[in-house]
Structures are given as structure tokens and as C-alpha cells.
């Protein structure tokens, strides 16, 4: 032990003492990122990545302390990805608690109608309206530990007072159910069963589906992470390329 400490003190004497008050660019970087450097790539990437994190923000702007994904940010990006010929594929990463139904459905429809290959990964959580977004892509992955909460639509803060409001909610519910069943292998019956299941969520109806279960129910295609997702996306891009070449010939 003593030998060690002597060695370090000698080493320190030999080196110049860095001034602590003056923050070097390296120190700043460590404070900001918790790391010193990240690899630099020169050319533009042919795969773009959308991260859907926090709450999906709809018509009501949430205070800045909330981490949100805004549809007015995402939708123009999806348009740009669609029209840029250099971009060949899109990776969607989800870790969301859900949020605005209409905004979530808007993002889902945009992703589903994108002509380029899309792959989604659910990491951590893809709850509530995150479910249609996850299934909207051509192929979906879920991390083994990730969860998805399936539950009926609610509007918090509003009291259902008239039958019309209830009917409206019911129709909204139907839109979500039909979107999910159209874009995944889950049957409507199974999805509704999970949605109205009792006893899974404390004092609430719905189901919290974990990684492998989501695949078992047919909601998600495969359990996996970033490696598998990128490989799948490359594969889909290759198929897409071959198809378009055949069309030209």
C-alpha cells in the first residue's frame, strides 16, 4: 500500500498540476456527457432514428419539466424522411408512458404509411398510445424487460355526463383497437381481452404485457435489442431495393 501511494505522489510531482478553477473543454465534456469522446462518422447515415420518449404531447402544451415528444416535431421529420432519397430506412425507439390519443394515432398513421422500411424497438416502456406506434412499423422488437400497458382510453379531468361523450370515447377506443389489430398479429378479441382484464393492474382494468408475452400475444414480432433491430432494418432495406430494381426492369 505504502509503495503504491508513494508511486502516485511521485507521478503527480512529475506532471503539471491541472488548474481546477479553469474548466478545460475535456472537463466540460465529462460534466455534460459523462464521457470524453464519441466516435465520429464522416458520411451521412442512410438510416434515420426517431426517439419517442416521455409523454406524447397533444393539443395541450405541458410545462417544461415534463419530458415530451411533440407531434409537431415528429410529423415534419417523417415527411422529410419520406422525401429524402438518401434515407433508406427508419428506426423508431420507444420509451414512452403514452399521452394524447389523437397525436399518438397521427404519428402511428404517418409511420404506417411511410414507403421506406421501418423497424421499432420498445425499450423500458411503450404504454397506452405507445402500443399503436410500436406496431405501426414494418417490424417491431421489444426488449425482454420492456413492458406495454394495454388499457381502455380515458380522458382525465372530464366527467362523462352525457351519452354522446361516452359514444365519442367508445369510437376513439375503436380507432385504437382497429389500428393495432390491422398492424400486428394480435386478434381483436385477444387485444380487447387484455384491455378489459381485471386483476392485473391494481384497482384498474387492463394488462401490463412484458417482453416475451407481447411476442406471445402477437402484438410485437420479436424480442430483441438494437443489434437485431439494425440487422432486420438492413434486411428490409435490401428487400425494398431489390423490389424497386425489379420494377424498373
Amino acid at each position: 500500500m505504502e509503495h503504491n501511494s508513494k508511486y502516485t505522489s511521485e507521478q503527480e510531482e512529475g506532471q503539471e498540476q491541472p488548474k481546477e478553477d479553469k474548466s478545460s473543454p475535456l472537463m466540460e465534456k465529462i460534466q455534460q456527457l459523462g464521457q470524453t469522446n464519441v466516435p465520429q462518422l464522416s458520411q451521412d447515415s442512410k438510416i434515420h432514428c426517431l426517439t419517442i420518449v416521455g409523454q406524447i404531447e397533444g393539443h395541450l402544451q405541458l410545462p417544461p419539466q415534463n419530458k415530451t415528444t411533440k407531434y409537431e416535431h415528429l410529423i415534419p421529420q417523417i415527411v422529410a424522411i419520406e422525401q429524402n432519397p438518401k434515407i433508406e430506412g427508419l428506426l423508431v425507439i420507444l420509451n414512452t408512458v403514452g399521452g394524447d390519443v389523437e397525436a399518438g394515432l397521427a404519428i402511428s398513421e404517418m409511420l404506417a404509411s411511410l414507403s421506406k422500411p421501418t423497424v421499432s424497438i420498445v425499450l423500458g416502456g411503450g404504454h397506452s398510445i405507445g402500443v399503436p406506434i410500436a406496431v405501426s412499423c414494418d417490424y417491431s422488437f421489444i426488449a425482454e424487460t420492456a413492458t406495454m400497458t394495454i388499457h381502455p382510453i380515458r380522458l382525465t379531468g372530464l366527467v362523462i355526463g352525457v351519452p354522446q361523450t361516452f359514444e365519442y370515447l367508445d369510437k376513439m377506443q375503436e380507432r385504437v383497437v382497429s389500428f393495432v389489430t390491422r398492424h400486428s398479429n394480435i386478434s381483436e378479441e385477444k387485444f380487447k381481452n387484455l384491455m378489459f382484464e381485471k386483476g392485473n393492474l391494481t384497482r384498474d382494468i387492463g394488462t401490463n404485457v412484458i417482453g416475451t408475452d407481447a411476442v406471445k400475444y402477437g402484438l410485437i414480432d420479436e424480442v430483441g435489442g438494437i443489434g437485431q433491430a439494425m440487422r432486420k432494418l438492413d434486411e428490409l432495406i435490401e428487400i425494398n431495393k431489390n423490389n424497386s430494381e425489379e420494377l424498373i426492369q
Partner: protein
Amino acid sequence: MILYTMMPQELVFPSDNNEFGKQKHIMHEGIPLIVEETGEQRYRVVRNLSSEPNHFLDQRFSPGAMISIH
């Protein structure tokens, strides 16, 4: 005080309007960013909104980096 309600927190306690003013959405060198004003024409990057993965490798726009806009 304990408040039992279905209402979302932001409806019960509306936040100050100037809270929204602190953060801004800007395009800087072709990269969409959410920034927070720290001084005159000095901004701290809060979030990089780009979908291009390479933009996240550029340390000038990483969260926490300071940028100045003229």
C-alpha cells in the same frame, strides 16, 4: 394538503407562463434543437431533435453544450 383528483397536475396547478418562455425550439446549422437561454444570445442545448444519428455525435450540439446565436 392532499388532493385526490383525476385531473392532471398541470390543470390543477397551471404553471407560470414564463416557464414556457425559457425553452425555445430553434434550427441551428440545419439541426433542430431545444435550447434554454442562459444569457444574452447564449443558449444551452437541452435536447437534440434531429433524426440523423450522426448529429448526435457532433459534440457542438450535444445536450449541455453552449451555443451563441447572432
